């Protein structure tokens, strides 16, 4: 059985986000790119499952839709322990496009378990995992916070309103994972870093997909307002500010 982990290449979460003059494109100068944090947790869990599967999981691969400048991020995934990688040589323009490209990789390589993080930390679309399952006509399970693989059977826990549900599922399927899937992303071992360049990155050209999305403009959030200090004895002033200015009570 083979696992595929979808990998987004996103700006480091501490990046100060800026857009170009017309607010149409992200200004990428000085941006440090990292594995999308949810995908990194997914990869960590996928590797743990492989290691504990007694050989039932033969390999864990990663897939990224991106240009060559995404390869350092892909190689980090290889350093962490992924066996090989697929890169579709195209700008990851929107979720539909990305899902269509990844679907081709799944179909051509017979992956049976596909991990997707619940969202990317840049566009927060939460769409690729579900779209991918639709393209492949296979089930998807969302909000998965635990993935176990006892005796070669998949057991998932997903968060539901007020609690958790446990489900069993047959392969193939897409699992859309969130908080809890693993505690911390795995830190690459030194040997892994040295081995990363020896592992294959299979680069392919994108399949033709209709362009369904066009970005008009982006807006940055408003700057934080100045903090107002209130005398702790003066509760009337505090209530007045909360009611009339902040409008929260």
């Amino acid at each position, binding site marked *: 059985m083979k696992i595929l982990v979808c990998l987004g290449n996103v700006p480091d979460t501490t990046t100060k986000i800026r857009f170009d003059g017309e607010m149409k494109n992200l200004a990428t100068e000085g941006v440090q790119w990292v594995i999308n944090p949810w995908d990194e947790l997914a990869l960590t869990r996928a590797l743990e499952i492989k290691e504990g599967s007694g050989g039932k999981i033969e390999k864990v691969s990663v897939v990224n839709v991106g240009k060559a400048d995404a390869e*350092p991020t892909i*190689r980090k995934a290889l350093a962490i322990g992924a066996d090989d990688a697929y890169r579709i040589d195209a700008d990851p323009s929107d979720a539909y496009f990305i899902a269509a490209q990844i679907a081709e990789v799944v179909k051509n390589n017979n992956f049976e378990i596909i991990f997707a993080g619940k969202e990317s930390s840049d566009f927060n679309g939460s769409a690729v995992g579900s779209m991918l399952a639709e393209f492949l006509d296979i089930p998807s399970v969302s909000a998965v916070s635990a993935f176990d693989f006892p005796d070669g059977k998949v057991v998932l826990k997903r968060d539901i309103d007020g609690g958790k549900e446990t489900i069993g599922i047959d392969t193939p399927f897409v699992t859309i994972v969130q908080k809890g899937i693993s505690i911390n992303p795995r*830190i690459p*071992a*030194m*040997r892994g*870093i*040295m081995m*990363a360049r020896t592992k294959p990155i299979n680069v392919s050209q994108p399949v033709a997909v209709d362009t369904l999305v066009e970005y008009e403009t982006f807006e940055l959030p408003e700057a934080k307002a100045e903090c107002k200090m209130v005398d702790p004895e003066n509760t009337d002033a505090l209530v007045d500010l909360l009611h009339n200015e902040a409008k929260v009570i």
Partner: protein
Amino acid sequence: MDFELTEEQLMMKQAARDFAERELLPDVIERDAEARFPVRQVKMLAELGFFGISVDPQYGGSGMDALSYVLALEEIAKIDSATAVILAVHNSLVAYGIETYGNEDQKQKFLPELASGNKIGAFLLSEPEAGSDATSQKTTAEDKGDYYLLNGTKNWITSADNAGIYLVIAQTDPDKKHKGINAFIVDRHSEGISLGPHEEKMGMRSSDTHSVMFTDVKVPKENRIGEDGFGFKFAMKLLDGGRIGIAAQAIGIAGGAFDRAVQYSKERKAFGTEIANHQAVAFKLADMAVKLENGRNLVYKCATLKDQKKDFSTLSAMAKQYCADSAMEITTEAVQIHGGYGYVKEYHVERLMREAKVTQIYEGTSEIQKIVISRSLLKD
């Protein structure tokens, strides 16, 4: 001249930073206060390959270059230099020493244990009356035919209790002075080895430091490194490289204090504005940044020369002296910028200042480095 780090070096640096922030930072203040060895973290570092960073993969190491090693030490020292010194002594002195100067049997026997971190290495050179003057070794290694018999006391031994492998420098033939000195690989649990009490140090408190007493300790002849009398030259060669590690550690300590000073000065307000807007503070930060940059460039250049197999002996003395003295200055200023908060443990900079001090002392004091530098300048 290319100042760019490779993808592997950047990944290594990030891995060390992630580890330090996630695993060392949460309990660094408590371990320092309680002088508690980082047992859990050392095990994790071993699993990640930090105990054989530069060791050849054929002996179980990771085979990374010296610059990667320096970057790792720097990142770890930013958070917890006590853990960095455990790694520095193990990698720069013991593993490097055996790999570079040991014979094939010694490498096969000891390097896999060291590189995997199953056994930590300790380097035993200093004595109660032989610190900077390493030629005055009183510890004796009497040649008994099949074995050597070790007797004497070593001082200030990093990881003395937690180590599994000792690299011991001792005098075999006092008549030959420093040419009678040998180096030996010694099992820490050999009969006749006893430890003095845990030293209560100013800083680096969670690394364990002891004196080590040898009483009729038998060391197999095959555990001697190099030809008879090679020990002093061996120790000096190791310290040339060891200085790079300590310089990296010092600049890491300085960088940790600097980062905290920058952050604090952008948050703390006085006289109606963040203190970073006061020129008195801003100029301190500028001075600190220049020293950091200079120090890093010296250390990285040394590591690059080492990787290129070029001579780095004088430059590593420069790096050690400059980085250690700068670390002391930068951490002191970081405390000053923090004001009263800098004087309490919660803000870390007082600990970093205590840790910086010893980098001016161990593996060759700043004064000894100046002797090395000036002698190299003035020799014919």
